[in-house]
């Protein structure tokens, strides 16, 4: 997978985050060549997100990278598990994400929503038809 902005380690965090946010086990389901012109495009959500973030203004890109790292490193603080986010069991990951989603602190909710909606952008926009293509259903 050719990445433009995220490092392979960050892409791994992103992949697990996509699976958790979207509620699927396998985030790379859309690796295929979907355009009518027969172009070969990698539609893995991680690649879509990486490409999208790479084109954002520098400040925004930096914030997203920081948010991803915070997410990765904070299970100890918020659910008392001395593990990285990517090493949590699915149940713990869900409980951990919920602490962000429902935090009293606006900034944590903001990070949650930013990452959540970014994963949705990557996942639900695959393929050509942002509308009629319901293959994600």
């Amino acid at each position: 997978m050719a990445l433009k902005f995220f490092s392979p380690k960050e892409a791994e965090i992103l992949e697990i985050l996509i699976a958790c946010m979207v509620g699927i086990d396998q985030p790379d389901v859309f690796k295929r060549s979907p355009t009518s012109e027969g172009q070969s495009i990698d539609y893995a959500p991680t690649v879509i997100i990486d490409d999208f973030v790479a084109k954002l203004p520098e400040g925004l890109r930096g914030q997203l990278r920081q948010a991803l790292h915070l997410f990765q490193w904070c299970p100890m603080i918020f659910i008392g598990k001395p593990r990285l986010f990517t090493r949590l069991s699915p149940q713990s990951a869900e409980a951990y994400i919920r602490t962000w989603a429902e935090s009293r602190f606006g900034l944590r909710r903001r990070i949650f929503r930013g990452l959540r909606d970014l994963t949705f952008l990557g996942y639900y926009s695959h393929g050509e038809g942002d509308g009629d293509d319901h293959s994600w259903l």
Partner: protein
Amino acid sequence: MVMIIRGCDIQQDLSETVDVCVIGSGAGGAVAAKELAEAGLSVIVLEAGDAHQPATFSRHAPEMLHRLFWDGGMRTTRDGSILISQGRGVGGSTVHNFCYAVRTPEPILDKWGIHDLSPELDRVEATLGVKQIDEAQVNHLNRVIRRGCEAMGWRGVVQRHNRGPCADCSVGCFLGCRESKPGIGKQSMDVTYIPRALEAGACLYSNCHAELIRVENGRAIGVVAQLGKDSDRSSSNHRLTVDCQAVVLAAGAINSPQLWLKSRLPDPGKQVGKNLHLHPAVFVGGIFDDVIDAHQGITQSYYVNHFLELERDPDSGYILMPAFGSPVLVAASMPAFGHEHRELMENYRHIAALLVLLHDRSSGRVVVNRHGHPVIRYRLSRGDRALLVEGMVNAARLLFAAGAREIILPYTRRIPIKSESDFDVIRQRGIVSNDMLIASSHPQGTLRMGSHPRHSVVDTYGEAHAVKGLFVTDASLFPSSIGIPPTLTIAALADRIARRLAVNWPL
């Protein structure tokens, strides 16, 4: 000769001398450019974004967000709580807007001290080909909303649009209309006013970012722009220096005050950037037994204006509008995450949703940071929060009346609403920032017009109180929130200002 020059193709510094330099080519800039060029003035238009080729628009949201919007559609208020969509490229926000063409309500004109805008509105409607939407074009989503509205005994209306015959594909309204050309598909500024401005002799630089408005002895004398910036990163890094006798600022309600402040132009009344209104909008969805397929057909043809009584109160109220149904936007508007969210998305084809679009009394401010980037401050007042909550409750009532079996609220935590007896949850929870998606498509008011320099930035004909020869013709002009889709009003004001400028030429 018809001229669009792509800034990113230019490999040297350039200078131009014209009568008028227009900054921005959206609803306000395009109209000003055409009117001035047709009046015989030499006009140059600077547009930061691309000159779009509609046939190349794809259906891939991440790509189109970058092509059509500032910051890839991720521009937000400083606290991240409101997402502000602003168009970038020739045609500005009219390229991705939903084509509601609504005339300025009389009570708003009275409040703004504008005696009559009908001649200008008529001209704009004729140029944009505005017409009533046929019954046959009202899609299932809009019919369901109308059914609910009628069952409630409320007032709603099938609107008029600036749209020629089209495939009613819906997606193209938000991600760019592939069919758009003069008379066909979306009649945005890039296929209506801009070609006419160019035919009349105006010259347009795309990928050309105005960085500084030059003022000498209290008069606007030119603009300095960066060529190639904001294109697909094939930046040329050269400059364009424009010498002119008048500058028309039409970069939109965020970027216009930004440019004013960055250029350190006079602001004696300390009004620049203030009075920002956003028309914040929140989503309320309903799950129906029948298939809605909200992504098919014209997204927004009908809306409920029962709660906008401008004769009684010109400063507040709300509209209930059908919400665009692309998977990405529906996903982002829904509550929850993980399996709970997925379960909701499995109902995608059965969801009809409304946006509660607030005619906001709250106002914010655009300032610039040390890099010259805009920082957008805005907080909803207690009264406006209460009104949004009331709007959410009424949206839910309408959806139930239309046959919804469950209401989906936009809060992060999923709170299913199965009957009206559950509505107290909405009232208790209220509006909490970063707990739901709040979206703004209509920023306005940041360089407001008025007769007094202490309370406004420009006069009622758009000229800056403190800088001669500097005119504003975009949504920044609005003295207060307008409460309705604003494009026709912006265009009509631009027409009025440009014609007056042409009549008074030379300044």
